Structure formats: structure tokens, C-alpha cells
């Protein structure tokens, strides 16, 4: 096509906030020189990229899990008349080679579902292209042409006619197949807090994981992040404080599964996905006193620290003068673990990253926060780490977790004091708020039931009466059996 090439990037509509940081990371990873426009509204499911090469958008598509597909835009319009007019104007400019190549059409709509019959009708409106295109081949076409209609993002107020229509040549799919490949449903070894495959791949992308890198996860658990890192060719090492998790001796997490299979392990997962060549090791260690040599540098540190909700924040407790009376010389000793305050954990994580990342290396980690404490200043900061992006995921119960991406910009620096952060101890806030609300709801429901019963003329027993009644009934039944 003559003129400036434009590309349409169509995204899947989940994890919208993670889209921009992912693509921005990939642009940095592949050293692509392009400005990414921040689309308005942010929820808009497609972007248009200008001034990039086809090979570059292919590189983005080869890694992105937010992206559905990318296409080269040939023509567009805001009404059917304008659109078809533009396409017809373009026809003499279409390369003659397409006349000799087979093709098929792909119809995509956003915010309006259309049936197969309507799809065919849409294709038929473009019949005039026959003179410049070759023969149709639905199974194995040389080219695929994309027809895309955009009906806005307001799903309660869908317009009759599309806001935008695009026509172009399909280039490549994103990597949404990847998370079927590493789905938790079919993964050999999982735990209660195994990371969602889509998010784990997003994290690996934001961590700029690439071929022959060395990636470290200091809270690896069942190794979800190790899988994601290795998918992109990084060599991976994990650490966890829980001996039983690393040895796959914890209670199974799957419904109906009573015992763990003998061959469940992180290594078995890597073998399942044929990534065993990239698996270095996991070891049992305490993040508060980690056993790594001081000058070791990682290319990326990617982790999901424990929040103290489903998995506790733990470290080995410092005690003087342990009692030895009950211990024999060869007995195995399990150190007692104590709470690891969340702010301390994140400060340790930032300090660790400054010490053990290469320059330009990235730290990607989740940060939990109750919604009512959320604001832009609450994140832990370090003067040697640049906070690249924050993407929020809503969890159940008025809490969120934020995916933080940092990049190391200096060899030394210090923690930035943050009063807002000091004031929040997530675990305490989470539980007190949750328990209180639950108690209130229970009490309210009970009152409602009493009123309802009264209306119907039924007298409900209180707790003690109910107990007496049940006991009497049981005694009577027992006597019946005896006689």
C-alpha cells in the first residue's frame, strides 16, 4: 500500500489495565522505536500503531497475551458510505500480486454479536473487491482480510450503526493460546495460590524475560512464575520458605483429590511443558535471611509475595537460647516461623532487588491493598528503582492487588520513606473488616428471619430452647431403638 502503514491491534477485553504496560514492555524488549498512544477511553479494545514495521508488530504479537490479533489497515470509515467510498478509492492502489493469491475474509465486531448469516452479508457488501483479489480459499488462504466493526464500549447503549469500520490484511495472532497450554486444569502440580496462567505470562512479559536470562522467584511456591519465565527462554531459580510445598508434600488443592501423586513436583511441571532444560533449581530458604552470595546478579526478579490471606507472611523467628532438653542430636528441627510484617517484606524485596538485579533488570511483584486505602502514593519506592507501571486487579471482598513493575536505574540508593504505606498492615485490616462485616450481615439476616416468622405466626425457638428440643428428640429416638 502506498503511504504510511498503520496497524490495528485488537485486544481481548480482560485485564484491561495490564494491556498498556504489557505492550510498552514488549516495545522496550524488542527495542522498537514507536510512541504508544494512550487510547481514550482506556477500555477501547483496539489501538492503532503508526510508523512501525510489519516485522515489529509481528514481534509484539509473538509475545503478547493481551492481544487477539494484529492487522495492517487498508481503509477505514465512520459510516458505511464513507467506508465503502474509501475502499473503492483505494482499489487501484492494491498490489497486483493479490489478484494471483487466494484469500479469505474474517469478520470481527465489538459490542454487537452478529450471526453467521449477517457475517456473510457483510462480506458480500465488499463484492466489488473481486476485480483485485484472487480466489477464495477458506482452509489455507495466502492472505486473510479483516473486516472489523466497532460499536463503542457502552454495552447498555449499543448504536444501530458502527462507530468505526476497518478493513485490512490480517498479520498475526497474539499468544492467547499459551495460557491454555499451561492451564492449571491440566498442570501436574498446583497449590492453593498458584498464579493464573494469563497473569503469570503478563508478569514474565513485564519482567522482560528473554532467551538465556537468569530469572529468580524468591516466593516460588509451586513454581507458576518459573514456568512463565521459562516459556520465554529464561533459566529459572526459585526459593520458598515452605519445605513441604517444594517437596510437594502439602495437602492437594484439587477437589476430590485425597493425596498428592508421588511424582508431583515443580520439576515434573517443567517436564510436562518440555521446559526442563531451563529449570535450574528450587531451594528452601527464608527471604528475611536469604542464602545467596552478595555479588550474584539476576536479569529479572518476578514474584507473588504472600499477603497473609491465603498464605501467611512468615520468616524464621529470632530466639535466644533455644531449649535443647527435648532434642536428641540427630532429630530434625523445624524452626518456628513468625509473622513477617508486610511493609518490612516489601522493603526487603526492594533492597534485595537493588542488590541482586543487573542495571535495567526488572522487579515485577504483586502488592495487596484494601480498596479504601488505595491511592497512587501508597506503593513502596526506592531511589535506585524506577516504578514503571502499576496495574490493579480487583479481588473479592473490597480488596485489590496491584502489579508493580520496577526497573533498576542505579547501583545504590535508599528506600523512600512512605507514611501512607506504614499505616497499612494489610492482614490486620483485611481480617478485622471482613469479620465485622460478616457478623453484621449474619445478625441482620437473623433479624429478618425472625420478623418473617412472626408475620406468618410461627414462633421461633431461641438457641437454648432449640438445644433442649434436639436433645429430647435424640433421647426419644434412642429409647425407641432399645425397646
Amino acid at each position, binding site marked *: 500500500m502506498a503511504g504510511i502503514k498503520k496497524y490495528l491491534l485488537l485486544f481481548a477485553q480482560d485485564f484491561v489495565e495490564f494491556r498498556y504496560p504489557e505492550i510498552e514492555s514488549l516495545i522496550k524488549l524488542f527495542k522498537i522505536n514507536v510512541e504508544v498512544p494512550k487510547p481514550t477511553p482506556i477500555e477501547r479494545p483496539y489501538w492503532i500503531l503508526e510508523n512501525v514495521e510489519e516485522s515489529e508488530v509481528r514481534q509484539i504479537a509473538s509475545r503478547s497475551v493481551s492481544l487477539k490479533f494484529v492487522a495492517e489497515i487498508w481503509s477505514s470509515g465512520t459510516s458505511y458510505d464513507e467506508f465503502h467510498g474509501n475502499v473503492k478509492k483505494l482499489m487501484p492502489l492494491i498490489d497486483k500480486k493479490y489478484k494471483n493469491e487466494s484469500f479469505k475474509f474474517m469478520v470481527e465486531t465489538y459490542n454487537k454479536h452478529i450471526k453467521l448469516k449477517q457475517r456473510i452479508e457483510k462480506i458480500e457488501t465488499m463484492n466489488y473487491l473481486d476485480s483485485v483479489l484472487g480466489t477464495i480459499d477458506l482452509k489455507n488462504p495466502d492472505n486473510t482480510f479483516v473486516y472489523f466493526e466497532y460499536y463503542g464500549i457502552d454495552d447498555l447503549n449499543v448504536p444501530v450503526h458502527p462507530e468505526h469500520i476497518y478493513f485490512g490484511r490480517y498479520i498475526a495472532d497474539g499468544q492467547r493460546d499459551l495460557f491454555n497450554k499451561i492451564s492449571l486444569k491440566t498442570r501436574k502440580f498446583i497449590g492453593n495460590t498458584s498464579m493464573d496462567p494469563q497473569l503469570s505470562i503478563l508478569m514474565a512479559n513485564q519482567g522482560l524475560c528473554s532467551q538465556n536470562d537468569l530469572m529468580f522467584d524468591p516466593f516460588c511456591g509451586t513454581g507458576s512464575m518459573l514456568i512463565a519465565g521459562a516459556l520465554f527462554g529464561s533459566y529459572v531459580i526459585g526459593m520458598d520458605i515452605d519445605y513441604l510445598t517444594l517437596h510437594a508434600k502439602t495437602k492437594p488443592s484439587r477437589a476430590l483429590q485425597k493425596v498428592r501423586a508421588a511424582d508431583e513436583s515443580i520439576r515434573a511441571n517443567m517436564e510436562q511443558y518440555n521446559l526442563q532444560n531451563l529449570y535450574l*533449581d528450587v531451594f528452601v530458604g527464608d527471604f528475611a535471611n536469604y542464602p545467596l552470595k552478595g555479588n550474584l546478579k539476576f536479569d529479572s526478579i518476578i514474584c507473588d509475595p504472600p499477603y497473609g490471606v491465603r498464605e501467611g507472611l512468615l520468616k524464621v523467628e529470632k530466639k535466644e537460647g533455644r531449649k535443647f532438653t527435648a532434642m536428641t542430636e540427630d532429630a530434625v528441627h523445624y524452626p518456628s516461623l513468625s509473622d513477617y510484617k508486610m511493609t518490612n517484606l516489601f522493603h526487603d524485596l526492594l533492597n534485595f532487588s537493588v542488590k541482586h538485579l543487573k542495571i535495567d533488570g526488572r522487579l515485577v511483584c504483586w502488592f495487596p491493598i484494601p480498596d479504601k486505602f488505595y491511592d497512587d502514593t501508597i506503593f513502596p519506592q526506592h531511589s535506585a528503582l524506577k516504578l514503571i507501571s502499576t496495574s490493579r486487579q480487583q479481588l473479592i471482598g473490597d480488596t485489590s492487588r496491584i502489579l508493580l513493575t520496577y526497573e533498576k536505574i542505579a547501583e545504590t540508593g535508599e528506600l523512600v520513606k512512605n507514611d501512607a504505606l506504614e499505616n497499612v498492615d494489610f492482614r490486620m485490616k483485611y481480617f478485622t473488616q471482613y469479620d465485622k462485616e460478616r457478623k453484621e450481615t449474619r445478625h441482620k439476616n437473623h433479624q429478618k428471619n425472625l420478623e418473617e416468622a412472626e408475620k406468618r405466626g410461627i414462633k421461633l425457638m431461641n438457641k437454648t430452647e432449640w438445644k433442649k428440643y434436639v436433645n429430647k428428640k435424640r433421647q426419644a429416638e434412642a429409647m425407641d431403638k432399645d425397646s
Partner: protein
Amino acid sequence: MKLITYNFLTSKCIRGVKVGYPLKLNVVEKKVEQQNFNPEFVQRMLPRLEWSAIKSAADIVGCAEIPENMNVETSLHDTDFLQKLHHLLLEIEIVNGSLICPETGRVFPITNGIPNMLLNEDEV
């Protein structure tokens, strides 16, 4: 545990230990697992390795072909050397054994290929 991980581990986390490196390696059971040879990865790891620990580990597992000293610049393009180092670092798996702190003699057990570096309450 692979020997590349061995090269990264210390016992410096024990209270009072100054260097804690290299750890003494005690092998009870080991095996050799074929891994794809990837010269670029070994090249990238070279500057991150502590050579004294590589050499002593090579002696313990019986890999005699590792030289006493290593010059990063000449070694980077020596494919034969990289291949030997690849075998030592990535293909030898310590299944059972232990790591011993050079200063305090504290033993960290390795079971099923997983080192347990957790400290006790009076050591942190």
C-alpha cells in the same frame, strides 16, 4: 541441586558468619541428566561464577577437566571449554547430600535434589 546453584549459595545468613563461602559440598547420591548445550547461556553466566567454588566442586564430583584458573575473555569463545563447563554446571544433579558452612560447620541437607537452607531460631 545443580552445581550452578551451588555456586550461588552461601551460609552468610547465619548470624556471626563473615563470608560463608564456598560451602563444603558433601555428595551422597548424584546423577547425570542430559541438558541441551546452550553456549550463550554459559557465556552469560561466566562473569557471575566464583571460580574457586567451581574448581572445588569439579574435584568433588570427579570432573578433572576443569582448569585451576579461568580468564573470562579467552574462555568466552572456547567452545570445548564451554561444553565442559555446561556439563559441570547443568548436567550433574546432587540428589542427596549436604552443604556445610566453612566457618561454623552447620550442615544444610540436600534431599531429593532440594537444598534446605532454612536457619534455626538461634542462628538468624
